[in-house]
C-alpha cells in the first residue's frame, strides 16, 4: 500500500485522524495538491472550490480536537458528481443548459454527508444529464481513464470513477440509471455500488429517469463503500419512492456475515460480445468463491435479451418528461435570439442541450406520443415486470448473482461514434436498474494490456449487508485494491 494519504482508504484515514497522526486540513491539502498535479491529464472535475474545502476541513479538525468527531467520515474529502445539489456550488450536469446554475439547496445525501462531517469536495464530470457510458457527452470535454489517458473512464459517472482512481478524492458519489456507477467503477479499477431503488433519497439529484435513478458510492474498498452507504441511506419524506427500512451498520455487518453463500451464474451474461479476458477474470472470481465452499449454481434470466430495448424505451420516455422543465424561463440557458415565448422554448432547448440529450428527448417523446404509447411504453413496462420476476425467481435458490460488469474494458476516446454501439456497454448492468436491485462492481483483475476488470455482484432488494459481505470476502483475499495507475 502506498503511503500517500490521497491513496489511502477511509478506514485507514479515519484511524490516522483519530490518532492525531494526520489532520483533515493536511489530508485535504494533499488531495488538492494531487488534483492540481494530475487534473491537466485526467480532467475528472468540472470545478472545485479549495477555499470551501479547506474551511470544512478546518471545522472538522476543530470538532476532533474538542472530542466531538462524528465518525469515520469526519474530515474525509468526498467528491460529488455534478448532478447532486450542494448549496452555493455549481450544479451543471455537464450541460450548457445549466452552465451558470448555482444550487439554492442541498440534496438529502449532501445534508447527510455534511452531518457526518465529510468534506464536500468538487464537482465531477459526467455525460450530459447522465446520458452516456463514456463521459464523452460532456459539454466540458471528456474525462480520461487514469490507467490509460487515451481511453474513456466509462460513464456516465466517469469523473467520479477517474477522480478516485487518480487520488483526487478519498471516495466519490455517482448516480446509476443503467450502470452509470458500476460500469465506470469497473473500467477504472475501483468499487462502485448501486443501492436498491428506494434505499437512498433522490431529493436534490437532477432527474434523468426517475424510476431507475439511484445515488451510490465509489470507493477504494468494499468497507469504504459500506461506510459511505451507511451515511447516505435512509427514508426521506422528500422522495416519495424512498423506503422506510431500518439501516443496519453495513461496516459491522460486512465483517460479521460469513459464507458460504449460494451464488448464481446467469448463463445469458456470458455469451456473445463478452471480451475473453473479462470472461476469464470473472471465471476466476467464481472459482474463488467455489474454493471457499460456496455453492455455485447456473441460473437463467430468460428475458435478458430484452433488457436493453426495455431500458431505452423507459429511460428515454422518463427523460423526455423530466427534461421538459428546461424551458429557459425560471433557470437554465435562455436563448437571446427568440422572437416570442414559444420560440424561446424551442431555441433555448436547442442551444442548451447536446446531441445525445436531444436524441433521447426525441426518442422518449416519440414512444410516449399519441398512437405509440401502448406499443412502446406500456409494452416496455410489462416486459420490465417479466425481467424483474426473472431476477426474483433466481433468488429463491441463490443469495446473489455473479456476472461481468462490462462486456469490454475501457475503450479509446472517440472509438464508439454510433449511439447503438455505446448503448451495448450497459447490457450487464441495466437489468439491475429495471428490477430495482442492488449491484456492486468489484475489481477482479487486469487485461494483459493493464486495463482494470470488474465483476458485478447482484443482490436481493434491501439486502446490501449480504451483498457487501460477499464482495468483501473476495476483496480481502486479493490484492487488486493495492494497485494504482502510473500517473
Amino acid at each position: 500500500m502506498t503511503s500517500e494519504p490521497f491513496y489511502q482508504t477511509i478506514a485507514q484515514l479515519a484511524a490516522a485522524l483519530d490518532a492525531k497522526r494526520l489532520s483533515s486540513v493536511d489530508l485535504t491539502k494533499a488531495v488538492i495538491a494531487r488534483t492540481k498535479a494530475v487534473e491537466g491529464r485526467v480532467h475528472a472535475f468540472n470545478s472545485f472550490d479549495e477555499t470551501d474545502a479547506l474551511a470544512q476541513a478546518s471545522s472538522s479538525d476543530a470538532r476532533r480536537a474538542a472530542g466531538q468527531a462524528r465518525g469515520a467520515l469526519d474530515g474525509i474529502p468526498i467528491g460529488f458528481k455534478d448532478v447532486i445539489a450542494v448549496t452555493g456550488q455549481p450544479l451543471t450536469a455537464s450541460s450548457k443548459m445549466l452552465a451558470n446554475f448555482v444550487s439554492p439547496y442541498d440534496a438529502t445525501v449532501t445534508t447527510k454527508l455534511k452531518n457526518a462531517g465529510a468534506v464536500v469536495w468538487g464537482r465531477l464530470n459526467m455525460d450530459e444529464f447522465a446520458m452516456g457510458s463514456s463521459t464523452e457527452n460532456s459539454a466540458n470535454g471528456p474525462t480520461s481513464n487514469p490507467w490509460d489517458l487515451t481511453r474513456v473512464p466509462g460513464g456516465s459517472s466517469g469523473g467520479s470513477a477517474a477522480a478516485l482512481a487518480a487520488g483526487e478524492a478519498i471516495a466519490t458519489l455517482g448516480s446509476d440509471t443503467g450502470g452509470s456507477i458500476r460500469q465506470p467503477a469497473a473500467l477504472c479499477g475501483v468499487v462502485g455500488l448501486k443501492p436498491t431503488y428506494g434505499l437512498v433519497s433522490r431529493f436534490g439529484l437532477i432527474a434523468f429517469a426517475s424510476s431507475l435513478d439511484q445515488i451510490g458510492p465509489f470507493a477504494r474498498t468494499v468497507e469504504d463503500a459500506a461506510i459511505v452507504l451507511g451515511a447516505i441511506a435512509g427514508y426521506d419524506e422528500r422522495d416519495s419512492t424512498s423506503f422506510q427500512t431500518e439501516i443496519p451498520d453495513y461496516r459491522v455487518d460486512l465483517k460479521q456475515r460469513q459464507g458460504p453463500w449460494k451464488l448464481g451464474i446467469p448463463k445469458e451474461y456470458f455469451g456473445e460480445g463478452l471480451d475473453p479476458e473479462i470472461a476469464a477474470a470473472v471465471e476466476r472470481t467464481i472459482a474463488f468463491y467455489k474454493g471457499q465452499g460456496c455453492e455455485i449454481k447456473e441460473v437463467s434470466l430468460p428475458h435478458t435479451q430484452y433488457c436493453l430495448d426495455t431500458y431505452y424505451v423507459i429511460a428515454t420516455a422518463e427523460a423526455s418528461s423530466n427534461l421538459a422543465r428546461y424551458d429557459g424561463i425560471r433557470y437554465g440557458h435562455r436563448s437571446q435570439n427568440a422572437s416570442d415565448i414559444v420560440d424561446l422554448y424551442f431555441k433555448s432547448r436547442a442551444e442548451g442541450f447536446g446531441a445525445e440529450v436531444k436524441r433521447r428527448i426525441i426518442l422518449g417523446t416519440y414512444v410516449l406520443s399519441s398512437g405509440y404509447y401502448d406499443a412502446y411504453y406500456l409494452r416496455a413496462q410489462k416486459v420490465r415486470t417479466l425481467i424483474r420476476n426473472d431476477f426474483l425467481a433466481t433468488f429463491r435458490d441463490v443469495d446473489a448473482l455473479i456476472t461481468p460488469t462490462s462486456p469490454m474494458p475501457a475503450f479509446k476516446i472517440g472509438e464508439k461514434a454510433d449511439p447503438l454501439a455505446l448503448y451495448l456497454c450497459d447490457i450487464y448492468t441495466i437489468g439491475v436498474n429495471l428490477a430495482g436491485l442492488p449491484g456492486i462492481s468489484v475489481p477482479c483483475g487486469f487485461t494483459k494490456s493493464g486495463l482494470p476488470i470488474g465483476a458485478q455482484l447482484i443482490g436481493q432488494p434491501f439486502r446490501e449487508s449480504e451483498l457487501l459481505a460477499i464482495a468483501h470476502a473476495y476483496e480481502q483475499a486479493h490484492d487488486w485494491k493495492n494497485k494504482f495507475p502510473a500517473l
Partner: protein
Amino acid sequence: MSAPADLNIDHVATLARLALTPEEKAKFAQQIGDVLHHIEQLKKVDVSGVEPTAHAAPVFNVWADDVSKPGLSVEAALKNAPAQRDHMVVVPKVVE
C-alpha cells in the same frame, strides 16, 4: 408495433419543443431509426396478462401531511432566473 418509418421527426421535435437543424433531423432520424429497429424485438415477448411495472419501489399511495413548512426565500428561488424584476421572472410578452 409500428415500423420505424413512422417516425415523423418534425412532429416529434415540435412535441418536444426542440428546434432542430436540417442536419440534426437527418442524422437523428437515421440513428433513432436504428434504435427503434432494435426495439422492434420487444413485440416478440408475450405480455398477455402481465401487469406493467412503473417502478420497483415497494411503496404506493404516499401521502404527505398537509402542513406548510419553510421553503426557499424569494431571493434564493429567483437566483438562477435568466431575467427578473420586482421579485418576478421576466419573460417575453405572452398576450398582445
